């Protein structure tokens, strides 16, 4: 062993040390003996790591000779000599009075310490440079402690025995359960122990034994979750007294054992009306949330630019800035969704479209220290790959388009001939290709999609938490890590997401009436994505392009531009996010019923995006031209959002006889400032180690700023009479910096009422089976300040770099300022909600139904569509209104039959949104118009394909083009159709197909042919448990939706340089005149764009059902688990994204809607996962 020369703790380490000492003392007070041991072990390991025990230098000898010395002094002397520090477990009552005899001359440290502790009820441990002093474990001293037997019977209120009741000793893991007669037998180690009786369907009961040896217990039936308390804005409310539309999800219930790392994917399908969209299976992909559909319309003139604004996301009372996937779902206790104005209005300006309240897990008072550990090992595989046509079918399609020489230089007839020969005898072409007249004819089938999309990748999740509490202090600490590898060329390690999160919550009752809390969290995520993901080439490459890593062109070996190489040769774009968030909270309770809370949050979200557009030289896999791409531009963007929020609010509760009153008043202010700067430079010296300094090119820097502030005063009154008649009133006076000075403030009230009919006397007959029957209604108005540009009320001029150079140098200029209206103010969102909550059969069956009408009125929109002579877009004014109507239904059933318990929950929701007010007197269709249903798809109605008979005989050329149409055959304006082209219906009967004046009054031959709004979304989740086995499932889906997607996967040879897929072969040819798809043309030109233009025939049906998750879990019997010193040990196997039943072409998912010519994007991943959950 070695000793350092002196104490070398540097400053932060001392702080860390002090913190840990304090922390350790704290928990050691709480923990019982066994847990203490485990904790000490873990604690010391962590401590040792933190203190960075280094290899020190000097041999350790101790010199100390005393006949009698205080133990503390002796240890001080020894530790000083050894360069160690001492930690005392401060629950050692006997410490102060201990004297020891010691005789150490050049002794070793252990020798000296052994002398000290000999004969004491204390012991020590060494860890790193620390001597830890604790009591000697009691078991070793009191090995013969008496165990007291205790027995009894557990019955229900009717006196019937309850089997399977779990009985646990408080603060211990020991326990037993009742047999079929409700009888239990147990031995306890102390006379006055508290026993906890729990069983599904019954209220958990704690009983002090108090010396008894026989104990008969009656358990009350759990009349469900009615007594549950749910979090509402700035407070809590009993669930049965709710009058607003509040859905609460316990994350442990829905998370179960799913390998889900993000809260977004977890919430999919769980709350009706909460729409969660995740664009792809990309690791770390963010979810977007929306409550009850369309909220606003985009300010651009393109149709259907619907905004579905995000709800206000609040974590422990304070808005959350970062993407929600920074939060580990394991840290979340509940997610509460406030959907109507009655419940959300308290949050004011940004709650217009609902609120998602996230409450994190905390420690509980007098809770024994509890550790939880869970992990997941997941294998992911891509779902739903597109399927291309064969080589022969592909070349044939070229010929059918009328191509003679393909754009890669091949003669199509020669090619067809060669493919046929190859297919007959592949051995004759060992290279898989032939060369004719110097032109290469690839013949062998290749798979460009599999070239970039890997078979599988691995993902890991770990989460460890510790929580507990004493009479005065509660705490919870947690740490988690996630690593997700994606399926784009997995070995490239470019497609990855990593996250680390640490959270701590500590609450202390300073006095009886003051509580201080500190909530601190740190999240860090790193997302890496390939600079070019290769999906583009994978989708558009024909099935014969060589997938060899290199090709020889004119005797030179060149890297082949396969999709895979496209990824490998480039550098990934890496986005790192770090969020540090601190909330300090003081809660004061001056007298009974009143609670004043003041909280201040500081949140710092930092982002760093690094990208490097590498210079890459490779052969184009299609035409073998060697190209150099990439500007060699290295770019860094640093952004930072500093967010500060202050909440001060008071809750007061008073009960006078049967009148219950609860009041809330408060003040809130928030300040958000975003700042970013970006620097870029080309001419990087080392492509492997790019940096801004090590580059020779031009430096370009820029910055941007964005700030806003809101302040508001709010109040709420909840009143009920005997829990029967419920009333809620909310008001908020808000001000926002996003509006000009004189239009900055707004007052937004709401009211909600409810009637618990089941509690009425006249309903007493049904009280045995009707547990709740509560109709309710709410109406309220909330302001909406969600304008992207916080300075929209100012006519600003942005800096811009023109293409004009002055003396070979770049210059800067300013854009022309836009127009601004001077009466620009809040839009208000008014929601009427009528609902019913029902619970039946001892709460086995529960159901909620809500119907709502939400009107976004006075939306900021380009006031009037102004004539183009204005020269700019019209200023934003509060002139548009939007109405959404919808319903939500949720039904749940849970029961237990003998040993089998099962549960099922189903929900269904729907909405439609209509424009009710807008300035578009001319009814221009490229603009919104009054009465427009959002999501409308305007297009032509497909009639049929033109046939040869439509043309005057003899006018068609040999390849069936250039003919003269017979009189009376309709033609699209500006078009010279050929047989096989798509004919549209002449809806207005004017003999020509056109868009009329593109107005509502004269839409020509276009009409509403579909609607892209998903209708009747549903979610079903459920499970069944038998003994230690538990099976669960999650299903989601949409019943009605139209989608228009024009891309390579939906239409044959859609893209000039694209290809044809196996499910697109039914296209027109002279011998297939009744084809589904119209005529295709060489290089996707000619009439093909018209044949493939927006029309009824090629609309896709977005209806689908998705089995999102199946999980099978097994809990190891507790008797066995205890041998491993754990309370609970569960293992599970789960499949996420099991299957989707839909009507889409191969490779397209109804929920992946990114568009592009190639059509194929990052697919959803099927996840097979295995993991364990441990509690100890």
């Amino acid at each position, binding site marked *: 062993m070695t000793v350092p020369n002196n104490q070398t703790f540097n400053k932060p380490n001392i702080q860390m040390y002090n913190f840990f000492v304090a922390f350790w003392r704290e928990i050691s007070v709480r923990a019982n003996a066994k847990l203490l041991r485990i904790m000490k072990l873990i604690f010391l390991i962590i401590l040792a790591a933190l203190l960075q025990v280094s290899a020190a230098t000097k041999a350790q000898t101790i010199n100390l000779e005393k006949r009698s010395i205080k133990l503390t002094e002796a240890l001080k002397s020894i530790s000083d000599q050894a360069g160690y520090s001492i930690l005392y477990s401060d629950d050692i009552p006997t410490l102060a009075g201990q004297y020891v005899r010691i005789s150490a001359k050049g002794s070793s440290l252990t020798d000296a310490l052994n002398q000290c502790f000999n004969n004491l009820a204390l012991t020590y441990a060494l860890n790193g440079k620390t001597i830890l002093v604790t009591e000697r474990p009691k078991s070793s001293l009191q090995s013969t402690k008496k165990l007291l037997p205790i027995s009894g019977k557990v019955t229900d209120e009717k006196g019937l025995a309850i089997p399977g009741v779990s009985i646990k000793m408080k603060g211990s893991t020991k326990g037993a359960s009742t047999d079929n007669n409700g009888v239990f037998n147990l031995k306890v180690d102390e006379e006055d122990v508290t026993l906890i009786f729990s069983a599904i369907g019954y209220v958990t009961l704690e009983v002090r034994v108090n010396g008894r040896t026989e104990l008969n217990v009656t358990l009350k039936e759990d009349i469900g979750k009615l007594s549950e308390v749910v979090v509402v804005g700035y407070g809590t409310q009993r669930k049965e007294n709710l009058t607003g539309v509040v859905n609460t999800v316990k994350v442990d219930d829905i998370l179960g054992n799913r390998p889900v790392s993000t809260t977004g994917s977890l919430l999919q399908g769980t709350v009706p009306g909460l729409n969660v969209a995740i664009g792809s299976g990309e690791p770390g992909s963010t979810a977007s949330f929306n409550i009850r559909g369309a909220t606003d319309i985009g300010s651009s003139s393109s149709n259907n630019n619907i905004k579905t604004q995000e709800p206000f996301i609040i974590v422990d009372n304070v808005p959350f800035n970062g993407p929600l996937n920074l939060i580990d779902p394991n840290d979340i206790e509940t997610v509460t969704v406030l959907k109507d104005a009655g419940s959300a209005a308290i949050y004011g300006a940004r709650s217009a479209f609902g609120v998602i309240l996230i409450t994190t897990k905390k420690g509980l008072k007098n809770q024994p220290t509890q550790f939880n550990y869970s992990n997941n090992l997941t294998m992911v595989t891509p779902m739903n790959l597109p399927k291309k046509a064969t080589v022969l079918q592909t070349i044939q399609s070229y010929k059918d388009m009328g191509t003679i020489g393909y754009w890669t*230089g091949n003669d199509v007839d020669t090619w067809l001939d060669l493919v046929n020969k190859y297919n007959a005898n592949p051995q004759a072409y060992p290279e898989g290709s032939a060369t004719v007249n*110097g032109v290469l004819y690839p013949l062998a089938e290749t798979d460009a999609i599999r070239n970039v999309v890997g078979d599988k990748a691995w993902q890991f999740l770990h989460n460890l938490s510790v929580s507990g509490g004493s009479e005065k202090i509660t705490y919870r600490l947690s740490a988690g890590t996630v690593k997700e590898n994606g399926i784009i060329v997995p070995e490239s390690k470019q497609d990855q997401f990593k996250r680390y999160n640490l959270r701590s919550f500590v609450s202390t009752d300073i006095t009886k009436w003051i509580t201080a809390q500190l909530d601190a969290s740190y999240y860090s995520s790193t997302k890496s994505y390939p600079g070019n993901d290769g999906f583009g080439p994978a989708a558009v490459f024909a099935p014969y392009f060589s997938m060899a890593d290199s090709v020889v062109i004119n005797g030179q070996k060149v890297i082949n531009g396969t999709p895979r190489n496209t990824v490998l040769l480039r550098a990934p774009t890496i986005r790192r996010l770090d969020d540090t968030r601190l909330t300090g909270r003081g809660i004061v309770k001056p007298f009974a019923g009143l609670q004043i809370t003041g909280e201040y949050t500081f949140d710092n979200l930092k982002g760093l995006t690094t990208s490097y557009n590498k210079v890459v030289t490779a052969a184009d896999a299609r035409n073998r031209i060697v190209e150099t791409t990439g500007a060699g531009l290295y770019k860094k963007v640093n952004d930072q959002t500093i967010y500060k929020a202050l909440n001060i609010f008071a809750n007061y509760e008073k009960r006078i006889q049967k009148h219950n009153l609860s009041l809330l008043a408060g003040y809130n202010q928030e300040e958000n400032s975003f700042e970013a700067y970006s620097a870029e430079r080309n001419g990087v010296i080392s492509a492997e180690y790019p940096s801004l300094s090590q580059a020779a090119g031009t430096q370009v820097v820029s910055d941007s700023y964005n700030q806003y502030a809101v302040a508001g005063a709010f109040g709420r009154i909840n009143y009920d009479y005997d829990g029967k008649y419920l009333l809620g009133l909310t008001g908020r006076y808000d001000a926002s910096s996003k509006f000009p000075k004189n239009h900055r403030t707004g007052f937004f009230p709401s009211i909600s009422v409810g009637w618990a009919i089941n509690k009425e006397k006249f309903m007493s007959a049904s009280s045995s089976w009707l547990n709740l029957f509560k109709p309710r209604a709410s109406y309220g108005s909330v302001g909406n300040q969600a304008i992207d540009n916080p300075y929209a009320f100012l006519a600003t001029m942005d800096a811009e770099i023109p293409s004009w150079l002055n003396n070979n140098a770049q210059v800067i200029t300013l854009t022309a300022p836009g127009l601004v209206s001077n009466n620009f103010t809040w839009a208000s969102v008014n929601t009427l909600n009528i609902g019913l909550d029902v619970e039946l059969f001892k709460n086995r069956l529960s159901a909620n139904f809500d119907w709502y009408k939400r009107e976004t009125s006075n939306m900021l929109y380009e006031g009037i569509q102004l004539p183009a002579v204005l020269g700019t877009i019209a200023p934003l004014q509060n002139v548009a209104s939007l109405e959404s109507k919808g319903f939500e239904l949720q039904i749940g059933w849970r029961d237990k039959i003998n040993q089998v318990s099962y549960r099922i929950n189903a929900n269904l929701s729907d909405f439609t949104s209509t424009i009710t007010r807008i300035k578009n007197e001319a009814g221009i269709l490229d603009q919104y118009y009054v009465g427009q249903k959002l999501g409308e798809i305007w297009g032509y109605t497909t009639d049929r394909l033109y046939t040869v008979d439509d043309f005057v005989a003899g006018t068609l050329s040999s390849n069936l083009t250039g003919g003269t149409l017979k009189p009376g055959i309709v033609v699209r304006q500006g078009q010279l159709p050929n047989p096989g082209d798509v004919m549209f219906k002449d809806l207005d009967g004017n003999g020509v197909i056109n868009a009329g004046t593109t107005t509502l009054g004269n839409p020509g031959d276009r009409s509403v042919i579909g609607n892209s709004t998903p209708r009747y979304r549903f979610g079903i989740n459920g499970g069944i448990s038998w003994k230690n086995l538990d099976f669960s499932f999650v299903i989601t889906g949409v019943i009605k939706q139209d989608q228009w997607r024009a891309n390579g996967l939906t239409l044959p040879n859609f893209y000039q340089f694209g290809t044809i897929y196996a499910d697109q072969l039914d296209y027109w040819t002279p011998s297939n005149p009744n084809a589904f798809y119209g005529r295709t043309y060489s290089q996707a030109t000619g009439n093909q764009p018209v044949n493939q233009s927006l029309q009824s025939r090629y609309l896709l049906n977005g209806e689908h059902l998705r089995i999102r998750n199946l999980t099978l879990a097994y809990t190891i019997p507790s008797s066995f688990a205890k041998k491993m010193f754990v309370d609970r040990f569960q293992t599970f196997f789960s499949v996420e994204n099991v299957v989707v039943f839909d009507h889409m072409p191969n490779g397209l998912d109804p929920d992946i809607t990114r568009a592009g010519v190639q059509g194929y994007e990052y697919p959803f991943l099927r996840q097979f996962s295995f993991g364990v959950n441990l509690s100890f």
Partner: protein
Amino acid sequence: MKISRFIAAAAILALLGCKKDFLNRLPQDKLIPETAFIDYNNFQTYSWGLYDNFSGYGTAGFPPAMRSEFTSDNMNETRANGMSEYAYQTKIIPASGSSSLTQVTAQWNFSYIRRANIMLDNIEGSKLSDVDKKHWRSVGYFFRALRYYDLIAAFGDVPWVENALSDTSSAILYGARTPRDEVARNILDNLEYAERNIKPAGDGKNTINTNVVRALISRFGLFEGTWRKYHGLGNSEIYLMAAKSASEKLLTAFPLLMSNYDDVFNSEDLDGKPGIILFKQYAPNLTNHNSPVNVATVNWFWDLTKDAVESYLCTDGKPVSTSGVFAGDRSMYDEFRNRDRRLYYSVIPPYKVIVAKQPSWTNTSNPADAEYISLMKNIGGTNKTLPMVQWSKNWDIGNTISQSPHFRNFNAGQPQVVSELGYIFWKYSNRLPLDNANKSTNDAPLFRIEEVMLNYAELMWELGLFNQGIADITVNKLRARVSMPNMVLASINGSFDTRKDATVDPVLWEIRRERRVELMGEGFRFNDIKRWKKGSYLNKQPLGVWVRNADYGNRLKIKGGASQGYVEYFGVPAGWLEAYYLEPLPTQDLALNPALKQNPGY
């Protein structure tokens, strides 16, 4: 004690309430007009944005100015549906004007007018001296006139907007169009004010100065003067005389031409080059374009028509119809022999080589195949050498195109640089930066003295003042540069070109020919045809080179389905309509403003 707690809480609240500026947040990285137009530099900064109306060679694809050539009789976009919407009557009334600045030329779009007006409106309130105020007003007037020239050419009557409009400027927003007479007059007045008041040297090299203003007066004056004359609107002399005066001053100021025609378009630097009045500069990594690369790709669909090829004179100074040195058109080799060399700079001449191993090549055994390879070597310039090379980064591997004409369906394994008609347009091709997409930096001429010379020659004829002396300082200067014999007025009579439009005076026909040839592919022809009221020129079927189809496996499309003859791509045009002299107004604007009337015939 409890009271003191409340007092403390109240004090905190009061403190917060005092922070008055909490809700005042102003942008840190943006300016507002009140702060953006104070001193001279401010105006200069803002003005750079106005220069972006000059798209030059653009930044990708073909030069935007070329677009209007596709709809004229000069060129064809030879791909399905690429036919001239005017010739084939496939013109569609647009729903709205495009908002993209580079595409607005013939669009009902006033954003650029607004941009210029914002500067003009802020001059009076600035701290500029009176001289500077006049200078910036001149610059603003120039740019506004530049855009109005496009608008008047496209639509005839257009609303005149003198100041930046707001949403409450109903009189103009919902008013009728301003009559063409008034708009044209305003344009001319604005330009003449600018000519008098702009700083003679502008704001430094290659900026708007007196000469640039004059060049626009020359262009606009000729346009409006001849339009009025041929469309019977009257008052044409005012515009012609203004153009005459401006052109004369320019001819004095710019007596010389660049020595090589091709260098005008393919020089890395046009700064200080003779005859260049204004150009768009391109520089590596700052502003690049893609024109040369585009010519050498599979995506180049632009052919000259046979009619345009025939407009080039032969080396004896006579047209193909009467020239003694014209070798006939039964092969492209014959057709190109003894022609104005501007043809060789505009269309890839015929050749054939053997490419055994790229990129090296050898001549074929037939010396005739190399005729134009040697010719191109001899006429100077490094930009246009044969054989043509396709775009490709790696010249170690290279891709030499083995022949021209190089038909799309007979590309001999090289799909690049292919054409449907055989006359592939390559005026904007050069060998220097053929490298990587969007990397070309050769400068684009915007106003050059050659155009002024042609304007001057034409307007002098229209004014009845054209004579041999005028020809010598205009047309003959252009001819001398390309080693062509002079235009000799005495020799031009009705039989000088037997294929000419009989309704046009023989001398005027030759002046217009010179204009067509010199400015080929630069975006003038369509407006020229409209102002001359010669829409009927578009009724000719666009044809290609003469071939024997048997030489091509009988797979080319020959006019009339014959076994030999002119290659065709589009059939016989439906023909020009009288309405096409003016563009249709977008339906949306007509719906929004009932006072706005559609141009006749739509």
